[in-house]
């Protein structure tokens, strides 16, 4: 039978890899102190505990308030790989919430993340790219990434990284290039993207087509896209994956709205569109209504050019 005495022993430590969390409001300040301790084990345990806490948005807010991000910035360049990995994971989880994203922008974390793009650990790089991907979804974040000069580095890494990281890079690029495409064009991104359009993975093809779409929204991009990529995009219209078709249609839509210069491939893809099953985009899982806009729109655009 249970006794009414509260045990004098501490509760059993279920997970010794995590630092014990203080109660309520004191949890984060205590962890903040532990993170700055000189001992490696303490730092690692504190980071693991923080990683769990940060899933709650209120904790994210509190963390940003008490200036956690400064500490995390210094930890990003730690010599130990576990510390770096956990720090990047924490930053990723914080970036999933808007408060965290704003905090990351205000504390200028992105230039420091540039250093981590070459990290020897795969997981660190993957987390870094995830952070950049989430940040790019915010307009101010995308501007930040552009100012930090990350576009040429990302384009270069498209060739070397693994598939999942490539997906993240392509996502980041598509959101950033919406703002400004000149840097990417300068580093000859179109050639690399053309290769990706024929990649075996459907997600990569989809995202590459989206990047080309975003490049095509800018006038200087339109001409480049028009010259080089249209045949590939047209062949993608007959792809098996409907999302790839939608993205290719979108890219073509933007490429055809061009001042003065008529695309020579215009007639070509009008024919292919009639042959291919363009009107069956209603099967697209995400948005049946809008993906079917795209063929309408670019056909309209083509008819004007």
């Amino acid at each position, binding site marked *: *039978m249970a006794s009414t005495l509260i045990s004098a022993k501490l509760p059993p430590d279920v997970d010794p890899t995590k630092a014990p969390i203080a109660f309520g409001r004191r949890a984060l300040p205590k962890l903040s102190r532990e993170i700055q301790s000189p001992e490696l084990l303490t730092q690692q345990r504190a980071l693991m505990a923080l990683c769990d806490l940060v*899933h709650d948005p209120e904790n994210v807010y509190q963390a940003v308030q008490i200036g956690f991000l400064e500490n995390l910035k210094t930890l990003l360049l730690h010599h130990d790989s576990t510390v770096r990995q956990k720090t990047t994971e924490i930053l990723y989880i914080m970036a*999933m919430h808007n408060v965290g994203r704003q905090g990351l922008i205000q504390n200028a974390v992105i230039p420091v993340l540039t250093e981590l793009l070459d990290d020897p650990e795969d997981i660190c790089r993957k987390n870094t790219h995830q952070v950049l991907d989430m940040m790019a*979804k915010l307009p101010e974040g995308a501007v930040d990434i552009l100012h930090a000069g990350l576009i040429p580095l990302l384009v270069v890494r498209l060739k070397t990284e693994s598939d999942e990281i490539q997906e993240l890079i392509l996502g980041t690029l598509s959101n950033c290039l919406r703002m400004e495409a000149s840097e990417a064009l300068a580093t000859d991104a179109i050639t690399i993207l053309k290769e990706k359009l024929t990649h075996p993975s459907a997600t990569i093809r989809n995202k590459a087509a989206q990047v080309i*779409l975003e490049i095509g*929204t800018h006038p200087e991009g339109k001409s480049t896209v028009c010259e080089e990529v249209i045949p590939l995009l047209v062949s993608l219209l007959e792809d098996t994956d409907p999302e790839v078709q939608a993205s290719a249609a*979108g890219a073509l*839509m*933007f490429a055809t*709205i*061009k*001042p003065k210069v008529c695309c020579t491939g215009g007639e070509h893809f009008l024919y292919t569109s009639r042959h291919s099953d363009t009107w069956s985009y209603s099967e697209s899982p*995400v*948005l049946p209504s*809008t*993906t079917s*806009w*795209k063929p309408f*729109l*670019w056909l*309209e*655009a083509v008819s*004007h050019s």
Partner: protein
Amino acid sequence: MLPALRPPPSAASAVPYTYCSPPRAVPARPKYRAPLEADEPQKEPARWANLMYDRRVVRGNTYARQAVPTCIHHPNAFEIQRQREARRKALARKRAEEQIQLRTPEPVEGREHVHVQTELYLEEISDRIIEVDVECQTDAFLDRPPTPFFVPAKTGRDVATQIEEGELFDFDIEVKPILEVLVGKTIEQALLEVMEEEELAKLLAHQRAYAELRNAELAEVQRLEEQDRRYREEKERCKQQQMEMLQKEKETMEKIAAQAFAKRYLTDLIPSVFNNLHESGFFYDPIERDIETEFLPWLMTEVEETLEKKTLGRVMLDSLIRTVTEKRLDVFSQKPLPDQVEAPAEEHRPTDNAPQVAAETEAADQAVTADEETDQPAAEDQASHHITFQSEEANQEAMEDSETD
């Protein structure tokens, strides 16, 4: 029950040591013992703690004595077992002794031989107390024998209780909140994680939808811009064309107006031109012109010559007359006859004036010698000029008359 903090003794007897007769200070003893008779039936309560007089202390060789006297207290199993073993050994010994010894005769009917041990309560009574010097040396290697199992005397009533099943608590009811907490926390954590994933997925879907809408709208905007640009250019071009057309119309109108005006202006031109020309003498009658250009000048020059001749003649005559009169004057001045000379001079002068004209015209024929005279040639020139001017005027008048004709 004692608190569980004290570790239980490792020895066989689990009862801790308690004093039955706690040590006391030696009380005041009477010098002489109380008479023995009074003592025998009673046992004095133990007022001393002298080992020598303690019943419980075994006298004699403790090593040989193995049989522990049967206690009236409850021994534990170990003690029971030891007692049993001791009994067995004693029996064995006795049997061995019996075999050696003469046996006692068999009991009479109705009686039974019983082995009785009476040593328990035997006490040797004597004045002299047997004192035996005993030395004791603790053996280093011998373990302390276990303390005898001491069970305190039973006091009070025995009461037993048994907890039946279901009396303490109902496991199912009690375990429910604990289980709820455990399961609830687990599920809550799982739900949180799943919800987070779902939320993320929904956010991504939302973002994609938004991105698609934005792209579609952006494309629409660009298309409209293009359209607008084309329309504007079209409009500009139309306007340009219209302007040019207007310009041309204006020019044409101006041209027409100019042409009409010019035409009107110029209708008069030819007659006026002709008029002017006619007036300025371009259309001339050749005969008239001929007459005018050739004949009349010739006529005039001839007339002039004639008149000049006449003038010359007159001049000559005048000069002659003058020289003559001067000579005469000179001649006559030498002689004092002024009246006749002046009178004829005066007469000559007015008479000179009258025929001067005729004389000059006659003198004009012989013009050479008139130059020597100073007064009269000047006057004569002037006169001749006057005359020529007059003659020219007469000529011009004649010409104009001829022209107006």
